[in-house]
């Protein structure tokens, strides 16, 4: 059959652009910033189907929940996909991504950001999330599209999100082996761990619950979407509010009250849909958390606080969800290897000086 020259030209042009897009994706991947602090660093290295629990949500869960402690105590395989200021929009799309890639049995979502009426505007937060996702991932593209629309991000910033190359292309000057081999591995299965101690924390008092408190529209919408997603995929969902030990420059008592009431409202909605929701915002005593030792800044738990929280979480998961103990399963050797790397990392961290811990805590602040 003779193919017309128009069709040949169209086919040629299409192939040219497809190859170009593939190259753009590859170059974006090489040149993007490689840092263990970025969400999903290491997530895509895991063998598919081995991760039973995925954590999502803002920095409170990212810095307070340690997957490899769950492995150590209960043989639960988990990954922490929390990230700074992770909004409900991002948590939803990341949940989709996690379900597609790992088919986890349980997704845990920290609900601190559900209190926000407006979406955080910093595109750097979205880069933290999306830069490490595969370039052609449908969830990456829809996350950027939804987020850009909701946060009314500038067009040039949206282009930078879709095609990170436009932002990172000047990293060609810094190219070293790590940019090609991605050996900047996350050693903690996604968690960010600080050994800084803030001992000047003013503990919040009791909160009066407002029974008529309603979630902002967008938060309701994405909560429903999350629950629908879990219904459709047969994934369990646990909604939590992490403990915030005390007042900080980021968290006033007003914000604390709002968070508390947000979680109570989420508990009401979750119970109607048959999902568990736990409000741990002020549960220091129950978790054994010492506000004068177990927090790095009053808002985020440090290493010691995170270990205590994760210990409580492990027991809760064992009681409420049928999660397997994989510690004796030879197919899960990579988790044991990961735990040993994590243990060495923790030992090094505990040997850090106070100045190192301060510096790292400041660097981590987003």
């Amino acid at each position, binding site marked *: 059959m003779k193919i017309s020259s*128009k069709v040949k*030209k169209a086919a*040629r*042009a299409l192939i*040219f652009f497809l*190859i*170009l897009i593939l*190259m*753009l994706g590859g*170059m974006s991947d090489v*040149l993007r910033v490689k840092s263990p602090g970025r969400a999903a660093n290491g997530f895509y290295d895991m063998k598919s189907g081995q991760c039973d629990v995925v954590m999502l949500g803002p920095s409170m869960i990212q810095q307070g929940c340690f997957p490899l402690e769950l492995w150590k105590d209960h043989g639960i395989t988990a990954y922490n996909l929390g990230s700074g200021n992770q909004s409900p929009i991002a948590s939803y799309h990341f949940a989709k991504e996690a379900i597609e890639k790992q088919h986890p049995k349980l997704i845990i979502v920290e609900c601190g950001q559900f209190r926000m009426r407006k979406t955080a505007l910093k595109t750097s937060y979205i880069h933290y999330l999306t830069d490490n996702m595969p370039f052609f991932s449908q969830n990456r593209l829809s996350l950027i599209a939804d987020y850009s629309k909701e946060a009314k991000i*500038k*067009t*040039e*910033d949206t*282009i*930078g999100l879709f095609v990170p*190359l*436009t*932002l990172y*292309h*000047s990293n*060609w*000057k810094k190219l070293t082996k790590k940019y090609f081999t991605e050996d900047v591995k996350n050693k903690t299965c996604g968690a960010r761990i600080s050994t800084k101690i803030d001992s000047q924390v003013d503990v919040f008092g009791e909160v009066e619950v407002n029974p008529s408190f309603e979630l902002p529209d967008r938060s309701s919408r994405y909560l429903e979407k999350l629950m629908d997603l879990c219904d459709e995929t047969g994934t369990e969902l646990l909604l939590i509010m992490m403990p915030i030990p005390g007042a900080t420059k980021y968290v006033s008592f007003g914000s604390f009250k709002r968070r508390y009431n947000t979680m109570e409202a989420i508990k009401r909605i979750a119970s109607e849909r048959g999902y568990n929701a736990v409000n741990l915002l002020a549960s220091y005593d129950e978790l054994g958390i010492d506000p004068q030792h177990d927090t790095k800044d009053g808002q985020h738990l440090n290493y010691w606080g995170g270990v205590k929280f994760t210990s409580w979480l492990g027991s809760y998961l064992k009681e409420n969800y049928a999660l397997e103990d994989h510690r004796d399963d030879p197919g899960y050797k990579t988790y044991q290897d990961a735990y040993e790397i994590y243990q060495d990392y923790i030992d090094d961290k505990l040997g850090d000086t106070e100045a190192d811990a301060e510096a790292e805590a400041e660097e981590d602040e987003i």
Partner: protein
Amino acid sequence: MTMSYNSEFYIGFLAVFLIVYFLMPRPRLRLFVILAGNMLFYKFAGGLNPMSVIFATAILVWLITMKMGRGYEECEKQAADLDRKAKNALINEAKKKNRKWLALGLVLILGFLIYIKVGRVLHFDEVGHIRDIRFTAMLVPVGLSYYTFSAVGYLADVYWRKAKAEKDPVKVLTALTFFPIIIEGPILHYDDLMKQFDEMPGFSYERLSFGAQRIFWGLFKKIVVSDRLAAYTTTVFGNLGEFFGIEVLLAVIANVLVIYTDFSGCMDIVIGSAECMGIELPENFRQPFFAKGAAEFWRRWHITLGAWFKDYVYMPLAMNPRFMKWTGSIRKKAGARASRIVSSAVPLMIVWILTGLWHGTGINYLLWGIYWGILIVAETAFAPELKKIPEKLGVNTESFGYQFLQMARTFIYFAVGRMFTADGSKGSIIHILRQMVGEHRLWTLFDGSLYEHGLDRKDFYVALAGICVIWIVDILSTRMKIREELAEQPLVFRWLVYYALVIAVLIFGLYGPQFVASDFAYGVF
């Protein structure tokens, strides 16, 4: 978001524009799409208020040319049955009547340009809204110098009957606001552009492909080479007192390359954009640094500006009966050679003074114009003597070495010319020369300190590689039509070239949220 030819915004705008453009089934509809595109472009490039000045100019041009054209049409009707002598008398009569319309147009259009230029010298404010206009608060449209010259040329062409008055106001408006040329030219004959509006072809794979290649080549010159070198020249000329010797010399050389890659890069983007639509624009550069003399240089650099001055200033002056009478009297008194020198030197110096003032209104631009005028006049006047020098020295003028030295001399002419305006001050050339001879600082070439002034070592190597590529392409351009030649090559080879160009722009280009798309240098004129 502001519109600049080297911004991602422009690429996105052009892509959407071309999709809509190609969907139109007829040239007339495509014309309206261009007009809409012009308005949208200008909204982001200059604002709707300054655009009203261009619209007013376009309407004025249309009205005046229509008036003149009607006069000639009536005259031609009446002269249909007359003999040649009577016909010419009738036409001259019509011309006399049209002179007042031409004068009105020139006074209003050129007068506005002069008002802006003088206003800038007197530090008048520049406002962005019509309601804020006062005598000392000017509303300045982007591309003023370019469209003014093109408009004046069209008025003159209609007056001289070189072009017929366009009856369709939409075409005149579209031509005057044509977005690819509005900011930096090329300065063109609107008549030629409007004729192309009648024929605008639809989608063509080859035209789109060639146009896209040209656009990317322009982006390579601008955002890979020009903006990179400009980081160094801006640092040096912005703090001239802190730099000496080789640092300043390199800045002068880099400044030449910056202006070449910036302006010619813009022209590539602009001509490529028009090519995608099926519209041909005149070339503005023809390997200028291959010129072997000053006059030849200006036939290769900003070609359309030189052509405009030749058509509308030089020739009218040189062919003016009174002027010719005067040079005739010089021939009688001082001989043929003296007469020939004066007959070219006087209009040339006037052209060059005006060219200097077109570029800027300070004393340094006037001196720049006089500098080039003297060079070109001397080259023309003393051509026989200059030719004898290498002959007497036994130099082979056909040799590569001799021609290379001539090209190097042209580069030096241009570099010296740039020194008149490089640091933006009145005494720019004196400051630069003083700093150049004050201290040599040759060690900065070896101790790495040269890379601390806006251009690090890696950027320097990229810029150098870019200049080499541009030089090679310029050489090849003298021997072949590169895009056509490339189109004949095997698919794999040509795709490698295309990908290399696109990747070079995407990786090494200075663009993105961390960079502000820097304005093209000639956009300020």
